[in-house]
C-alpha cells in the first residue's frame, strides 16, 4: 500500500484512490480527421517505464478530484503531485 498526497486532502492511503494510468495523453483535436493509426495510438499506446512515470490518480473516497503524480515505478516513491491542468514539473531523483 502506497501513500499519496492528495493536493486538497493531504496524505492518504492508496485504497482511497483510483489510478487512471498514464497522464498527459493528448486527445486529437479533431477526432473525425485523424487516421485510424493515430486514433488507436491515442487510445491504446502507453508507456511502461522502469523509473519515473507520470500518471493520474483520483481521490475517489475523498474530494473526487483527479490530479497528476510522478511516481518511481521501482521504489514507489512519489516525487511530485500537481494539478490536472499543470504541466509536469522537473524532478530529481528516481531513475528515468
Amino acid at each position, binding site marked *: 500500500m502506497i501513500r499519496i498526497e492528495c493536493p486538497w486532502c493531504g496524505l*492518504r*492511503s492508496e485504497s482511497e484512490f483510483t489510478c487512471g494510468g498514464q497522464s498527459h495523453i493528448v486527445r486529437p483535436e479533431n477526432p473525425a480527421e485523424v487516421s485510424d493509426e493515430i486514433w488507436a495510438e491515442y487510445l491504446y499506446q502507453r508507456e511502461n517505464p522502469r523509473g519515473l512515470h507520470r500518471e493520474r490518480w483520483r481521490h475517489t473516497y475523498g474530494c473526487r*478530484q483527479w490530479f497528476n503524480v510522478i511516481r518511481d515505478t521501482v521504489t514507489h516513491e512519489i516525487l511530485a503531485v500537481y494539478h490536472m491542468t499543470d504541466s509536469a514539473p522537473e524532478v530529481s531523483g528516481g531513475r528515468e
Partner: protein
Amino acid sequence: MDELIEETVLAGASVQRKTLQVVELAAFGLVRLQACDRTERGLAVLSEQLGLTLPGPGLVLDSQEGAWFWTAPGEWLVAVTAGAEEQSLSALRSRLGSEGVACSIVTDSHVVLEISGVAAREVLARGSTVDFHPVNFPTGKCLLTQFAGLPVLLATLPGRDTFILFADRSVGQYLIEWFKSASSDC
C-alpha cells in the same frame, strides 16, 4: 386522508457501549452547494455574493445558515436546522443569482451519525486509515475519507469532542452493524 409519514434511516437503532455511543442525528437539514466556475476568481465572486469566507479543505465554518463543510474544490455541504432546508435554499439562491451555482437539498440522501465516548477515536481508526490523533484531528475539523469501505465525511464540531459522520442513507444500517461489531471490546 392519506399522509406521507417521515421516517429516519435507523428508526432508533443505536450503539450503546461503556466507552462508545453511536446515535443517528436527525437535527440537520443538508444543502449541497456546487460552483460551476471553480477558478480562483469564480470562488472569490461566490464568497463575495454570500458574504462569507468559504472554508477550504479540512475546515468547518460556522455561519448564520449553519455549519459549512468543504467537500471538494468549489463544493460545500451546509448543515442547517432540520426542516429549514427549503428556506435556506431560497435564501442562498437569492444571494447567488440564478446561474453558475447548483444548490440542492441532500438531507434525505444522508445518514448522520454522532460518535461519542472515550473510545471514539480508537474505534474510528478501525475503519479508516486517516490519523485520528487529536494533534491531527482536533475539534472543528472535517475530512473526507474511506470508512468501513465507504466514502464518508467526518467532522468534529468546534469545542466538542464528538464526531459526526455523514454517509449515504442506504448504508446506515450497515454502519450501525459495523460499529456494533467493531466496538465489542468497548
